[in-house]
């Protein structure tokens, strides 16, 4: 048990620390100019100095991303269920959805700004478009994956369509929904940054624009650290939610029992 913890947590952490030390050493030995590649130590100092502002900006990005995920989940789940229940809808709408998914964000963003101005609306639309797809598609796959013998059982005892959905298809699709959510969690941050980059007065994306326009490389790196942290936090949150929601899985339960026994 302890061994696996060391290997799972400390080994990757050690690699990371080693890499940062190596970076620091390179910067010092080769005297690399800070506007080319700042030292990790300088980035850390900058983050401490600029802490309140960074926190503020990160918080605003986080809120935007959460709104996007919320919209993505809401539309994604509802439309997956509708597509599943009404087969014609899926065939009719999937080309449109696939097309929207293949327009690059960087092209779509400015268009949305032209149409909807600089307010929150175009940003939300952009985020919702990005967050929607992984959720809807993985959920839709999950709804069709329910075990055939359980489906057969419900048919034999005369369960209604609604009962089949509620008792079999929705729970069976949860693992799929969560794998979509994990993808969406990191996508949403990227999309939020792009949205802020294109036109915003706050957010870590906005901060990034300011710093890069001022050739403040240290500032850019500080923003990157915030963005990566935010992405990882979102991913971690999705994993936690999944564990909380799906407690019936045999492998988890046996692992937990093994832990209790030892």
């Amino acid at each position, binding site marked *: 048990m302890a061994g696996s913890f060391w290997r799972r947590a400390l080994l990757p952490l050690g690699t990371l620390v080693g890499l940062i030390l190596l970076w620091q050493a390179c910067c010092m030995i080769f005297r690399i100019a800070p506007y080319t590649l700042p030292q990790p130590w300088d980035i850390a100092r900058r983050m401490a100095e600029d802490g309140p502002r960074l926190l503020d900006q990160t918080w605003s990005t986080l809120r935007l991303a959460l709104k996007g995920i919320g919209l993505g989940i809401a539309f994604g789940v509802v439309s997956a269920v509708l597509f599943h229940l009404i087969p014609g809808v899926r065939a009719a709408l999937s080309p449109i959805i696939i097309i929207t998914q293949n327009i690059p964000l960087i092209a779509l963003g400015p268009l949305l700004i032209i149409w909807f101005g600089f307010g929150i609306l175009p940003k939300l639309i952009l985020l919702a478009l990005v967050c929607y797809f992984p959720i809807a598609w993985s959920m839709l796959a999950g709804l069709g994956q329910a075990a055939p*013998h*359980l489906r*057969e*059982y*419900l*048919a*034999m*005892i*005369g*369960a*209604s369509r609604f*009962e089949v959905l509620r*008792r*079999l298809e929705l*729970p069976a699709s*949860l693992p799929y929904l969560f794998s979509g959510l994990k993808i969406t969690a990191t996508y949403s941050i990227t999309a939020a940054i792009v949205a802020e980059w294109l036109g915003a007065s706050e957010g870590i994306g906005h901060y990034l624009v300011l710093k890069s326009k001022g050739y403040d490389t240290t500032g850019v790196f500080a923003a990157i650290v915030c963005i990566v942290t935010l992405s990882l936090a979102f991913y971690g949150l999705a994993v936690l939610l999944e564990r909380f929601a*799906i*407690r*019936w*899985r*045999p492998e988890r*339960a046996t692992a937990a029992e093994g832990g209790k026994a030892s």
Partner: protein
Amino acid sequence: MSDGASRAKLRLENISKSYVRKGRRFLVLDDLSLTVGEGEFVTLLGPSGSGKSTLFRLIGGVERPDAGRVYLDGADTTGRRGQISYMPQQASLFPWMSVAANISSALATAGIERRRAAALAEEWLGRVGLGDVAGAYPHVLSGGMQQRVSFLRALLMPRGVMCLDEPFAALDALTRADMQAWLLQLWEEERRSVLFVTHSIEEALTLSDRIYVLSPAPARVLREIRVPFPRPRRQEVWTEPAFVSLKQEVLELLSQRGAAHGV
């Protein structure tokens, strides 16, 4: 008990069913007729692939026969769902529901009010010694225990006929004997009308009042056997001479057919 067709709980009349596979028609059930009387334990004994599960799908209304009718309590229920209770080949418990919820949700489907369904599940799980696992997820149960839960779920459904599709096929021999004894005892207390499917001759002779021996596909009734052993039946009924000779008779019947098919 089964003779008066009007008193039959379940009656199948001249059922035929075929499937189209690779552009060809395969006859699976060929003009099959049978009855299950009130409180009678009837077994369909047939080789693998003879169409027993298909017959259940027709009785359950999941599919319609090409010809023939299904009557429950004298009413034509051909192609109507939600008329029977059913125990499938695999335990088919929902992994995301507790053992108790698996039972009570099925009862709710059958029209029992939620709170009463939960109480019934609780009560019966305790009664058969599964009270401790009522709140557990099904995967912590052994295969035998899962089948007990699955049987209980079928037993508690307030429906006229129980259809049990090879419920013990996946169990090892010892667990299977155990389960047979358990089922025998429960059934003899409850006396529900049962249509049971198996391809074990011993199992059929141990449990049933009557046996229909089916031919390999397309399934036809080869013979109807009335099992003479009294109730309550002992588990050791297989030691009786009559048991051995009946078993011999069925074996010959099936192997004759097999030989005839082989030619």
